[in-house]
């Protein structure tokens, strides 16, 4: 594994080894001295073309706890409309000797381009690209699922588990990464959304789809082990994806009534930031089955694992 661009590039064994290492990293984070010397002398650049304080801080904490030098490069506001900016920035980072570039970009495929256009030598980690993928989010979601449902047993996958992902699938990089990763790990995925927010061409995805959240939480596609709510932007209604925020939350929001229909053990997840009252109510977000705060904590451990495996060259095999 040279880069982490898409969860589609991860084999089952590679994904499990990331989760296993994340478990070890999480254990170190419960110690008094959290810092490990593993990446001393290595430079990790956080290259963010979009505001995402939580993701940047998570990567920054992960790199620092592995003793890497961290450079935060906020390119937001720099002219993305001038296409050469990513290349020129990449050449600068190359000159600075960046070992890894963690990139968040509004354009789908930008990290792929950064990794493959010959602009830099280092490792590229996709921290979210356009409406394409957000692999470390999916990894931390899988880690959260495994730690709750399988007691984080090393080597365990998610075989037989069933996860509903609800909301704006069309524009969601989180949904794309999760469909690929969760199914690689053996879980079943049901996507639930209004038809306008499911992409044309979704028929080839390894999951089922539904327009009916009540049916899915009630077991219409089998008992659920988790419901993952996606953030939906209110502005989407201006482009006629749905008529109003009120109708959206009535049909596709997770509230106490729908939560009560879930099996006892089923988890409520959200990648954040939440629109309380739109896709999720406070009762659902703050309930004991909610893993939302835990997901944030797990994010650091998973990103430590990713950086560790990519930069210390101890990943299994090449060509991922």
């Amino acid at each position: 594994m040279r880069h982490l661009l898409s969860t589609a590039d991860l084999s089952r064994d590679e994904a499990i080894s990331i989760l296993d290492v994340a478990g070890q990293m999480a254990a170190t984070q419960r110690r008094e001295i959290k810092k490990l010397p593993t990446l001393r002398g290595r430079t990790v650049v956080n290259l963010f073309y979009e505001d995402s304080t939580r993701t940047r801080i998570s990567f920054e904490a992960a790199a620092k706890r592995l003793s890497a030098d961290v450079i935060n490069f906020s390119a937001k506001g720099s002219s993305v409309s001038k296409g050469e900016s990513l290349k020129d920035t990449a050449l600068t980072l190359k000159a600075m000797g960046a070992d890894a570039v963690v990139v968040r970009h509004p354009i789908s495929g930008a990290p792929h381009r950064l990794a493959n256009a010959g602009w830099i030598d280092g490792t590229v980690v996709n921290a979210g690209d356009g409406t394409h993928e957000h692999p470390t989010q999916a990894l931390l979601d899988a880690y959260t699922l495994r730690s709750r449902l399988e007691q984080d047993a090393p080597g365990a996958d998610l075989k037989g588990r069933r996860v509903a992902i609800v909301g704006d699938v069309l524009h969601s990089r989180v949904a794309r990464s999760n469909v690929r990763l969760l199914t690689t790990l053996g879980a079943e995925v049901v996507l639930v959304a209004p038809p306008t927010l499911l992409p044309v061409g979704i028929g080839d995805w390894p999951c089922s789809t539904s327009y009916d959240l009540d049916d899915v939480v009630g077991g219409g596609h089998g008992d659920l082990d988790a419901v993952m709510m996606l953030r939906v932007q209110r502005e989407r209604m201006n482009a006629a994806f749905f008529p109003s925020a009120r109708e959206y939350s009535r049909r596709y929001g997770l509230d106490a009534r729908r939560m009560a229909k879930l099996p006892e053990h089923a988890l409520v997840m959200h990648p954040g930031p939440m629109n309380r009252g739109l896709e999720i109510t406070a009762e659902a977000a703050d309930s004991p089955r909610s893993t939302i705060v835990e997901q944030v904590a797990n994010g650091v451990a998973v990103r430590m694992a990713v950086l560790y495996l990519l930069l210390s060259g101890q990943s299994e095999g090449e060509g991922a």
Partner: protein
Amino acid sequence: MSSYLIKGARPLGGDPTNILIEDGVLTAVGTSVSGGAQVIDADGLIALPGLVDLHTHLREPGREDAETVETGTRAAAKGGWTAVHAMANTDPVADTAGVVEQVWRLGRQYGWVDVRPVGAVTIGLKGERLAELGAMADSAAGVRVFSDDGHCVWDPTLMRRALEYVKAFDGVVAQHAQEPRLTEGAQMHEGVVSAELGLTGWPAVAEEAIIARDVLLAGHVGSRLHVCHVSTAGSVEILRWAKGRGIDVTAEVTPHHLLLTDELVRSYDPVFKVNPPLRTAADVQAVREALADGTIDIVATDHAPHPVEAKDCEWGVAAMGMTGLETALPIVQEAMVDTGLLTWAQVADRMSVAPARIGRVGSQGRPIAAGEPAHLTLVDPAARWECDPAAHTTMGRNSPVRGRTMHGSVVATIYAGRATVLDGKLNEALLEVPL
């Protein structure tokens, strides 16, 4: 004037014969024909009427950093073309007699091919008011093809009026069929691959809806319509229906839509970004069959050179377009001839005779027979070579067939009795010979 004896060429893929060219005319064709100052050994070569491109972006005036009339027409000659229609989306836009005459004169000055300017349908390609189509038609450039290419003439009333108006001078409106509201922010074909890549889709229906509307309009007012770069199986069905009803519609397909699919976009390499986008394998098969059965009349390159920086970037900000002049014939050979879908005689029709007829280029697309103007292309169908954009004559390096093995090569191009290409190389000595 130069004179040539082409020995042993196979006109339209037929039996080998000799062709004598004197003073810009094919003076004799036959196995016993001899004479001529310069002999061109054409053993094993196919002779085609000089190729006519109905859709070329030469970029001048305004974007001389991408291409000029000179570099573009040199590339055209290299690719076997003897006439190109220069699209109107220059800066300034070719929407006045002044601009089309400027482009036409530059073409005459360099003398590599016949440059036929395309006039804009609307002022500034804005889709609001008709440009002075009659003035462009009456100018020295003698414009017959009008197009807002790059933009769709979306307003149905404006499109109707344009179709009607150009009848007065036997013009044709060449439509870039793209419903604008259905393609806002579109990045690639909408389907399985766009869903996975998270790139905004350009649905086939956005092309098909406009073609359906336009063939009905053309039928209603009894006008001639040409559809640029047809890319979908659905468009083919609509065209087949329209032609069956006797509507006067013609259509083109690009070399890249005959060969490449949206699967290539998985690389996120902007060299594959083009408008209309690369479609699916089923669409490629449909446009090939349509070109074979005549539903699609011609191959046109949509040659769209861009400076390196316009492609050396992220997909989402990259320019749309691909070069095509120097690789069109090899792609047609690979996709259509070597697959048995077209004979060489049909290639001559699709790449010379029919486009010359649509563009009203009377002197081109003629039979290879004594007394005809001397515009010829000699092709070696057995040649195989690797496409290296750095070696191309066009300034554009954005070839989507980079690194692929090309089928067949242009050995010689004769334009107006003068060899613009000999032994596969541009004939630089030509510059000294006045047209």
